[in-house]
């Protein structure tokens, strides 16, 4: 059990590193838009897991509403990072694209951290927001009508 507890963060980290730096190293092709949205959700979620785990390793003081407002701001920021005007500029440049994906992990980390700082286990609320937003964006955010 303890080995599994030690291994899963490492396994998740390996997955995140492959996902972020894989295309840069191996020149993989761009996935379809809906899968790409899910990929962003995965990166946010993974970042959130690390953020939550980090807070649980140290003494915390909770209750400052600023942490709650940070959660909301970061949620909005994660959506704004997917706007075509932002994304379109970085999409064509592999290094910037990789940096933006790294940005998703950072935003996810901060979101999980901020939520846990407001109240222990509220990180689950952040993760719920990330998962739902990821699924919904994958169903059609930024996609034209099928017949267009």
């Amino acid at each position, binding site marked *: 059990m303890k080995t599994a507890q030690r291994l899963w963060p490492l396994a998740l980290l390996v997955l995140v590193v492959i996902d972020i730096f894989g295309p840069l190293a191996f020149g993989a092709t761009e996935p379809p838009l809906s899968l790409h949205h899910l990929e962003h959700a995965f990166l946010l979620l993974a970042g959130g897991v690390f953020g939550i785990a980090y807070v649980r390793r140290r003494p*915390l003081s909770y209750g400052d*509403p600023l942490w709650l407002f940070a959660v*909301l701001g970061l949620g909005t920021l994660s959506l704004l990072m997917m706007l075509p*005007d932002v994304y379109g500029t970085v999409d064509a440049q592999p290094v910037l694209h990789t940096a933006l994906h790294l940005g998703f992990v950072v935003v996810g980390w901060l979101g999980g951290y901020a939520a846990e700082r407001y*109240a222990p*286990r509220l990180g689950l*609320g952040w993760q719920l927001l990330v998962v*739902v937003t990821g699924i*919904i964006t994958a169903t*059609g955010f930024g996609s034209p009508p099928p017949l267009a």
Partner: protein
Amino acid sequence: MAAPLVVRERVDLHAAEIGLTPRRLVGMTLAVGLTLIFLLGMAGGIMKAAQGNLIQLQPQTFYALLTLHGAGMISTVVLLTAIALWYVLQEQLGLKPEVLLFGVVAIVWGLLAAAVAVLIGGFGPAWTFLYPLPFLGTWPAWSTGLFFFGVLFVGIGFAVFCLDLMAGIIRTYGGVLNGLAWDTWIPALRRKDGKVAPPQVIAATMVAIDGLITVAAGSVLVIALLAHWFSPRFPIDPLWIKNLTYFFGHTIANLAIYVSAGVIYAVLPAYTGRTWHTNKVYALSWAISLIFVPWAWPHHLYMDFVQAPWLQIGGEASTYIATIPATVVTIFGSLLLVYRSRMRWRLGSTMFMAGILGWLVGGIAAMLDATIPFNEVLHNTLWVPAHFHTYLLGGVFLFVLGFASYFIGERPVEGPWLKSIEWCFFTGLVGFLLMFYAGGIEGVPRREAVQPAPGPILAEIATGFVVLLLIGLVAMLIEFWLRARSSAAVERERSA
């Protein structure tokens, strides 16, 4: 191992320094919210009078008022029910007024932005703002963007409420599963101190989870619309955005009812002198509502033939599955709580019981409309506003009035003045709703400035009932103001 917690007191001190007590905050929000409801009701009355040819209104003005009335009413009702639930739970869950203040300010800002977009900009594609209508109207582009920013702020305000509620529930009960009282079913979840979440906390947990899901959908919706507003190159699939609009709009309106249920669980026992206990049936009913409420929205899209059939069928099934359990346990629970309890029939308790009736009637009318063979006849007729006015105005709003009456304090004896207010208000309410239902049965289309017969005559009669309703509401607000003043005077005397 979990780290020790250090509770920070700075925030509480800060709240006390600026005089932000829960009572003052809730009282102020109630005053603002009820005034807004009255003003938005006036807008509704003006629309009815125009449809009944009693006054002349340009179609653009009518649709702008329709937009303001719809968006404003939903947002205000969400605000009022949220603060009512917050107030009854704040001590139990250790909720902080400054967090709620942020949520209230965000919603009020959102409402102001929407009001400016509509009243100055003339934005008028109705509160559903179905794509591509917001981008095709005669109104200026700034009003479109401002309106969407307003919706975003309302969503942020509601998210603050949901997240803070969730935090309080986790802090007090150890997790959301305990907040949902699943420990009544799963022994492994049981707490050592034997503490089980009361019914109002179960309702609050369900609202917090589904509220966050709804806000996530709303954020994607508004960001997509704002992106298209900034850059028309941003592609939008009309069916996708329509689904999302109703996912957000339907669910948030629906959640106002479930928020109100939490208020009923907390406040009705104060009138009956009995306690509302949690049991396995409650926990199961609310778990079903938790899962199915966010899946009921497709019943708004039955006429969209390109919609996937599984969504249409799922929408119909979810409507029934989501609505029945929580409604039945709440209604039966209320009746059992009142039966032979020698309840004090005061303004507050009357409003709560009448609201339960409105919830039931509006719910049945809603389920009828969500049943596909009925919807083939009733779709987009006045039956639709009939059902949602029944459960929002005749249900949720009555709970808000009931809460306001309880919050300010009941009169020991209710004289003829109060009885006449109630008669005036309820006669106006029932008559107004009946005209809507009659229009629905006759197939009069909704959301039209000019209606075919018998729409105008029904609207003319309805206008009279709206006037009665608004007179009753104003009288009730005066009653609340008088009571608040006298209780403040008593409070001052006590402290002197």
